[in-house]
């Protein structure tokens, strides 16, 4: 039963991801898409947690961490790109 619950959870996550992906494709604005991608990242974190429970291995715990961190970095980069165009400045004015 537990496995069924986990699989269901995973399935639901999958749908959630699919819905978010729709937002990426549909937009309309770029920030919309970034929001959706960020959300996908976070939901993948959860999904991988469930997968590792299902597979019974701790091997993916690093993946979870790394995904959480790098989705964040991605989002920062995208936001900064939208806001300023340049994402790495030589010298910041503030």
């Amino acid at each position, binding site marked *: 039963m537990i496995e069924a619950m986990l699989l269901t959870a995973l399935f639901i996550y*999958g749908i959630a991801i699919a819905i978010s*992906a729709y937002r*990426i494709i549909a937009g309309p604005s770029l920030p919309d898409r970034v929001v959706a991608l960020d959300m*996908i990242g976070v939901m*993948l974190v959860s999904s991988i947690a469930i*997968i*590792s429970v299902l597979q019974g291995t701790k091997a993916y715990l690093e*993946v979870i961490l790394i995904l959480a961190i790098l989705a964040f970095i991605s989002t920062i980069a995208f936001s900064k790109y939208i806001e300023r165009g340049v*994402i790495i400045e030589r010298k910041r004015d503030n």
Partner: protein
Amino acid sequence: MSTLNIAIIFPFIAAIVIPFLYNKIRKLHIGWFAMLVSFVLFIYFARYVPRIANGETFANTINWIPSYGINFTAYLDGLSLILALLITGVGTLVILYSIFYLSSKESLGRFYTYLLFFMGAMLGVVLSDNIMVLYVFWELTSISSFLLIAFWYQRKRSRDGAKKSLLITVSGGFGMLIGFIMLYIMTGTWSIREIISMAGSFTDHALFIPAMLLLLLGAFTKSAQFPFHIWLPDAMEAPTPVSAYLHSATMVKAGIYLVARFTPIFGGESIWFWLVTGVGLLTLFWGSFSAVRQTDLKAMLAYSTVSQLGMIMSMFGIGSAALHFGNSTVSVVYTQATFAALFHLVNHSTFKGALFMVVGIVDHEVGTRDLRRLGGLVTLMPITFTIAMIGSFSMAGLPPFNGFLSKEMFFTAVLTIGEAGIFSLDTWGTLLPVIAWVASIFTFVYSMIIVFQTFFGPYKEERLEHPAHEPPVGMLIAPGILALLVIGIFFFPNVLGDYILTPAMMGIFPSLPAADLSVPISAWHGFRSMELWMTIGVIIFGFALYKTRKKWAFVYKLFPEKWSFNSFYSYSLEKLEEHSTTITNSYMTGYLRDYMVYIYLFFIVAIGGTIIYTGVYAFDISGNSSVSEFEWILVLVMIIAGISVLFAKSRLTAILLNSILGYGVATFFVIFRAPDLALTQIIVETVTTVLFLVAYYFLPEWKKEDVPRKSRNVNLIISISVGIVFTVIALTVQSGKLFESISGYFENSYELAGGKNIVNSILGDFRAFDTMLEVVVLLIAGIGVYSIIKLKAKKEDESVEDQ
């Protein structure tokens, strides 16, 4: 090391020495040194005459590439000797002549280097037993000829002439090379003597005829046989001594030598007979016919040479029939044609050499060779005239000059061969004497033109560069000697015959008894001989045609210039370049998309074609692992995201979608039990995204692709096909695994490499080398990026760029 090999190499060494010597010694004409070389060699070869006449032959081998049986074997027999003597003898005379002909302002060092280089190469051709080495020297003669023709390389005509001769002779040489290789394949040896000893044993081989044809291609191009003769008139751009030496006396005889040399192997074959005889006669006719219309003395001599070479060639062809009858007395009759060929070979060298020198003298003294500007020189240049007359009359076949003798023998040959009853000669045989006779008439005509047009008639000083007078004595010595030979041979032909020609015959017909090969030469065959009447006919008709030549000159207009082989040559080269440019430009568009289309088309056609041809596609999903709903959704999301990239209106959207793909792949790595990969993929994906964003700041936003619908459809079809091919093979592989993977071994990574993470152990230990190199790849990319960004072109560099 035998002196024979040294004799071949000697001129080469001298050729190398000359430039140095030339720089050191300025006072003495460097030609004297070259002449000494040539003369020494002449004496050297002359000393062989008695022993060769006794039937001896000489051979010596120096190893060159023994692994492939290619060795430098020098072989001297009668046939080689005849040419060696011509090469060195005429060489000596030509150099002597050139010393006075060429002013010391010319680059004499270069000239004599080339000339001696040629002499060595030519000796190599006639003295080599190994056909590969023969080929080596063969090409060297083409090259030296090329260099000599373009001696005045500033002139466009010289360059064009040189180019033409090189292209034609070297191309022919390439064909001949293939022929040689075929011979080797048939016989297993490169040695001519060994091949000859096997003659007859491989005539049924499939390569026999191709080898023969290719060999003849080489011979015909080199000896300026129709239709390859076109290079020879243009080669007249060379300084006159060169024309006299290479393009009449020696190099052009290399092809004839080759035919003679290979007669024992191919002679007796009907194709050989008809090709050699037919092409020879055709050349004879066409050369003499064309010579008449020339207005440039040298061009006239060039066509005359073509014609004469054709005559010699045809005689060798006729003579080859002898081998059809094997070792019988019947065959001896036909060998006389070969004898005549050899005889004329020598004769031609004497009278044509003299004539070229005369033309050179005229050109040198009055500054023109144009027949329309010449005339009346007889009183001003009597000695020159005498030599010219001797040469021309000999060429025309008049007594008491050597040309008469060989011409008579030629008539004999064409007359008798019709009776042989082989090679369909009974039907076509009568044509031979007719062509020979007609050609002789034209020969007579241009010979007369040379004498009368130049030396008689009104003297037009105003149309000459310099007033006419006799040249320095030195210039007359060489042609004078040749003229004396012309007469001397007429009176004592059998000295030549017995000591030189007969031994050469033994080289050509090694299977026939030596005693039967010598032919007594006589000037008088009696009134009943057909040959005499033919000669008389030639003189009568010749004179008539000479006198009326303005009336029938229109004949030449019947063949428009553009139908000539010459125009064909220029036209093809021009069109070749033009079409090449069009063709190459048509597909080398410089547009990446086009190139990618070619590549993908290749991918689809070659691989897809093989799939269909082998019928290999197979799908078997029974071994598949299960698919959970999550995975289905993930796949769908990725597919949709992937396709959406194509429609993304902004590049940022595209990158976001690509991120989905990246994360998706990472998730699949998790699902497929690959934590290391998932980690790497996630980080690399993010860093790549950052990189894209960094670069985007500097790049323009992507606009909608304004591609024509047609090429969009092409792109779509290609993309889908590539995807299909890719997928079909992958699926087939999955259902057709043949072996267990070796990776079971790595499962013991802890015991073997002390690591529990198998992937890491593979990367860090089992396949650490890959990892090490991968680090290098990264490093290259890193510093590469730095270098590419930091190193910018200066503006002035760009200007040359955009040509």
